[in-house]
């Protein structure tokens, strides 16, 4: 039996209310405490109890780019999990389950799958004070034993997760105790039995962080003092993080009564001179449309976060998709400049959100952070963000002294750069701002020459902003057999797929758009024109990025690898389909 060391994918599932998320976090943290790295993959339907929730953890020695499709070890807390997930188990993989509750008939599963019975219900019954939900800890304890890992890390992880959630010492220690019983049961009954083993490495300081937390942290670091938002999956954890850290971070989170209120409150704070943000998902963003146009007209900075989920309408509220690209590019009536940033991983969620605030202030316009459910709610272990070289740039925001000495102040002064001097109320001079077309003073003015001058000025800001917009990033060899094109959170899966292709002798590279708009059109056109074979990879139905590239550059991408099932791409899927495209199968 060939044993894999420190290469694992582990999975726990059951009904909502079974403590699936907590079990997953305990397992993930135990890995990190032993010096290993993880990436999680969470799936859940839009309900509070029942249904099928799952938490996958991929474990590696190095930083993990993305989750994968198949799992070595599956914890089934109900029969439904066995029925649904039997095909995601790798050859020789295993299922941990309670045979007293779940009956698996002979021949029901592939013969290579190992079964690990753990009497979870009995352990709970025999442990004074334990309750049924603690089966999650029993099962994680059993998993640690199957994987031949150190139980101490799990005990430390359980205590860590529980102390964060402040559920009290008794409950915490009970969880450790039942986990140990699960661990002991496996050690006694199934010693040295599994195809994967975990070996501790020197412990490094690692965060376990989600994309939504990274966005919130980037905003806090950028001096965003005010977040107004309305709850919406999968964006809500941004507002939750803000409010949980209000006093520590000295920020204010105001829960709004709807998304229209949220963005208008944020706009008001921005007008008054405070860095502000709002966060939502597609449907909430749709409600914000009119005010986004207002931001454009009154030239106010605001960072707007769209954590995408698949639409249309309510769509798949808890699932994954990249369907909002064209919507965000065109959101708002009339024409006005904007910047669209789509982070590709959790690091980029942090650094690009920080940068979004600088760009918003410098160019006095709305900046969109377009992330998605996969980025937003997946945990990843990583080194702490390096904040050493992060500099705040508020652009042409007048100091009190500058404002006081400014005679004949024009808030909307026509300039070559398109950027006008920005005062805030409370300073001298007094100024006004109107959603009507206005003259340089902010007074309503409908004269044709003035309209041209103001609208041209607003759009000149985009030309000026190009100096601060990075080129799309190229990963892999400069010259390649096939060039993959994508944006946002597919980055991890695509980078891994490129490695698989390399093993097959196909040289692939990847053009990744984080800054989608404004676009470096000439550069993009030239890069793509020089590529041997270009394939667009996106998680939507209509290949929106390919459409946008064609609109701005004229370059047409005919080959597309698309997924719009509401689940994220796995690297193996991209690999398979790129190979098919490359060999001309489709």
């Amino acid at each position, binding site marked *: 039996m060939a044993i894999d060391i420190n290469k694992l994918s582990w999975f726990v599932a059951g009904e909502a209310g079974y403590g699936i998320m907590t079990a997953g976090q305990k397992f993930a943290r135990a890995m990190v405490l032993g010096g290993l790295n993880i990436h999680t993959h969470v799936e859940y339907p839009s309900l509070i109890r029942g249904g099928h929730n799952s938490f996958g953890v991929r474990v590696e020695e190095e930083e993990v780019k993305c989750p994968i499709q198949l799992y070595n070890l599956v914890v089934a807390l109900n029969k439904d999990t066995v029925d649904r997930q039997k095909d995601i188990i790798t050859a020789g993989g295993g299922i941990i389950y309670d045979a007293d509750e779940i009956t698996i008939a002979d021949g029901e599963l592939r013969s290579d799958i190992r079964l690990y019975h753990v009497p979870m219900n009995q352990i709970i019954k025999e442990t004074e004070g334990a309750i049924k939900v603690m089966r999650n800890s029993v099962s994680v304890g059993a998993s640690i034993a199957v994987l031949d890992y150190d139980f101490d890390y799990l005990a430390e992880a359980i205590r860590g997760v529980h102390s*964060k959630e402040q559920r009290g010492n008794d409950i915490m220690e009970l969880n450790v105790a039942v986990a140990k019983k699960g661990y002991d049961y496996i050690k006694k009954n199934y010693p040295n039995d599994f195809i994967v083993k975990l070996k501790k490495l020197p412990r490094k300081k690692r*965060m*376990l962080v989600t994309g939504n*937390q990274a966005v919130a*942290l980037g905003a*806090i*670091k950028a*001096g965003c*003092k*005010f977040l*107004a938002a309305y709850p919406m999956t999968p964006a809500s954890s941004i507002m939750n993080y803000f409010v949980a*850290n209000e*006093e*520590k*971070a*000295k*920020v*204010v989170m*105001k829960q*709004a*009564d*709807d998304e*229209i*209120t949220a963005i*208008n*409150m*944020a*706009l*008001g*704070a*921005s*007008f*008054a*001179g*405070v860095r*502000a943000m709002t966060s939502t998902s597609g449907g909430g963003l749709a409600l914000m449309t009119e*005010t986004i*146009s*207002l931001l454009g007209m*009154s030239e106010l900075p605001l960072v707007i976060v769209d954590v995408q989920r698949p639409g249309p309408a309510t769509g798949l509220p808890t699932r994954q998709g990249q369907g909002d690209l064209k919507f965000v590019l065109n959101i708002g009536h009339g024409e006005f400049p904007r910047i669209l940033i789509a982070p590709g991983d959790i690091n980029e969620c942090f650094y690009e959100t920080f940068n979004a605030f600088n760009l918003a202030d410098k160019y006095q316009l709305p900046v969109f952070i377009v992330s998605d459910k996969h980025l937003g709610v997946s945990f990843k272990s990583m080194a*702490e*963000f390096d*904040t050493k070289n992060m500099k*705040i740039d508020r652009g042409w925001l007048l100091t009190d002294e500058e404002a006081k000495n400014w005679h004949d102040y024009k808030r909307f002064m026509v300039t070559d750069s398109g950027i006008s001097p920005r005062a*805030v*109320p*409370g*300073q*001298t*001079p*007094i*100024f*006004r*701002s*109107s*959603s*009507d077309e206005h003259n340089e003073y*902010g*007074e*309503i003015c409908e004269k044709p020459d003035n309209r041209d001058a103001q609208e041209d000025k607003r759009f000149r800001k985009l030309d000026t902003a190009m100096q601060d917009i990075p080129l799309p990033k190229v990963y892999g060899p400069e010259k390649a057999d096939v060039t993959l094109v994508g944006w946002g959170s597919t980055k991890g899966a695509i980078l891994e797929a490129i490695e698989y292709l390399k093993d097959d002798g196909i040289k692939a590279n990847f053009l990744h758009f984080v800054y989608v708009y404004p676009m470096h059109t000439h550069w993009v056109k030239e890069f793509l024109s020089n590529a041997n074979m270009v394939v667009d990879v996106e998680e939507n139905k209509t290949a929106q990025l390919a459409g946008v590239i064609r609109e701005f550059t004229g370059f047409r991408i005919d080959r597309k690898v698309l997924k719009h099932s509401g689940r994220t791409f796995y690297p193996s899927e991209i690999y398979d389909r790129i190979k098919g495209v490359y060999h001309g199968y489709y």
Partner: protein
Amino acid sequence: MVTINDLSTGDYVPDWCPGCGNYSILNGLKRAIVKLKLKPRDVLVVSGIGCSSKLPQWIDVNGYHGVHGRGLPVGTGAKLANKNLHVIVVGGDGDVYGEGMNHFIHALRKNVNITLLVHDNQIYGLTKGQTSPTSMKGDKSTTSRRGNFDDPINPIALAVAQRTSYVARTFAGDLEHMTDTIADAIAFKGFAFINILQPCVSFNKHNTFVWFKERVYDLQKKGYKPNNVEKAFKKAYEGWDSGWDKIPLGVFYKEKKPLFEDDHPVLAKTPLVKQSIDNISIKKLLDELC
């Protein structure tokens, strides 16, 4: 010290119809600012869209003229960002009770220290005479050919029902009462709401200056005290079932409540806009994730 002339926008003059009630409301607001000796740079007037919402254009204090119905959340955000500003939100009956009704109801319960002035002319003016949320039952308009079927909003009753911290009504045809009420509302520490009866000379031929003058009376002069929610509720309906034969003006209800911005630990001392954002350390937050 600020004078009425200091608040003038000079050659940039209002484009309201001659005789419009908005002129006197603008005048009343200016007088209230002078009366309270507010510095113009510390005053921010926020509005939505409509005739009344053009007001920030023609008073020399800071102004933000946004989109229809959204003055309240913009004003709330600005106040939370800089609580040293005197934030006055203005809008019409269509703006606040139609497009912005959700913001109105929720603003009543937030108790952020801002002042809301609703120019209630019971008609859509700028769009040329459509029925509004406060148009009287039976009144004809370009969109109510057979007469308005819908019951009008009773904004005073709504605000009293929510035990709003300051609820008042005044009349654009009584400059003195209006000036005093606006000044009182701005000086009040809490969310203060004034419904201002404002004749529309172009489109509302029913609720005219004369019509109002024959009906309004001053609650406070009759010895009414605004400290009882049940009495306030009753007063809010005075005239409601009798063709508005009597319309009370003055403060209906007043209640001191804690302010959101005083209660919030991050807002209580320094205004957000004055808090430095250079070199913010997130070290503790990052360590917590480890």
